[in-house]
């Protein structure tokens, strides 16, 4: 295996005593392998790690600062993307819940039998579960009142 080549080193802590870098090695057959490595400035005996010195010499402090900024920007971008995907998933789930709830509402006996197309349409177009419950309750109440009126007329 050849001596490792260090690519895109970046600071891994605020005190700049730890770095993270891509370590590229090549074996006897010329096959290259890449892995992420963490490099500490000091070894167990508080001596400066020779890999650390080598990386500083090759990339310079400014180069490592720049890589760190890039790395942070990439991480922020990734987090934003993940957050957007989560929001999208949540919105899709909401849509799913709302549609299935709407169908369940239309199966409530009073709604099922109601001819009030205006309120039925309001139920269908409800944008969230609160609206759905509100219009469903209104229609159930209306049907209930109609029924009460009808039975009062019948008994009179």
């Amino acid at each position, binding site marked *: 295996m050849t001596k490792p080549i260090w690519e895109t080193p970046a600071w891994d802590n605020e005190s700049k005593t730890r770095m993270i870098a891509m370590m590229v090695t090549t074996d006897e057959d010329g096959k290259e392998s890449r892995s992420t490595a963490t490099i500490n400035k000091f070894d167990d005996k508080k001596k400066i790690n020779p890999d650390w010195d080598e990386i500083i010499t090759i990339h310079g402090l400014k180069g490592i600062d720049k890589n760190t900024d890039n790395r942070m920007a990439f991480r922020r971008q990734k987090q934003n993307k993940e957050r957007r995907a989560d929001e999208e998933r949540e919105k*899709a789930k909401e849509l*799913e819940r709302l549609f299935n709830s709407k*169908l369940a509402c239309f199966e409530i006996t009073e709604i099922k039998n109601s001819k009030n197309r205006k309120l039925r349409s309001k139920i269908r177009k409800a944008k969230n579960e609160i609206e759905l419950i509100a219009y469903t309750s209104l229609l159930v109440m209306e049907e209930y009142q109609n029924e009460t009126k009808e039975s009062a007329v019948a008994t009179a």
Partner: protein
Amino acid sequence: MKPKKAQSQPHKKPTQGFVVIASRKKSFYVSALNLMESIRDYMPDAKFAFFTEEKWIDHRCDDIDYVFHCGGHVREKMYGMANSPFDQTFYIDADCECEHEDIADVFDRLGDNDMVFVKLTKEKDAQRVFIEVNFEQGALELCGGVCLYNSAKPLVKEFMQDWYELYVKQSSGEWWPEGYPKSLARWDQFTLWWLVNKVEKYKDLKIGIFEDNYRWNWFAPFGFHADGKHKLVDKHPVIIHYSCFFKKDKDY
């Protein structure tokens, strides 16, 4: 000036209507009723032909123009499509809902086509919804969720009947062309692809794609942009397809 006498009988306006099919699960029946009512929200004089299982029919079917009994096969849909009582038909899957007034001019979009479909496209948001589109010999590009067609044309009716019969054979394992991946056998879209691309008598059928494509079959899993707008469309969708979101096994 005296009006000229008509030289021939005036053209009879073709009848236009929607075909909706609900079989196998009661939830499809419930959803189909909602779909038809949602169309009437924007198009009060819409005509419907509803194919469903006799055991579910209740008073809510009373104001549906045509109610036909159908069997419980997975794809009664093509049977219904082949037996539309209208001259021009817009078929819509039962697990959909109409959300836009443009539904009222859907039949103008037929133009001189025999059939108009929604085309499955290559955008990432579309591809992640459709699990099996591409295969070595082609791609299942035409989506069978909605179909606008000239049902007065005998060849189109024959096409629909063949679609139904061939799919029944395909899904039972009685028919499958050699060299095609078996995993596609569950899709009626493969049967559609086969008839369109491999059957000589249908090669001259004029098949169109909806100009605003996904607005006519917008799958709920496509998702939304950060500003809340629907992905893959420029304007609010006309037909929302709940598909995999829909609780098919819910017992109503």
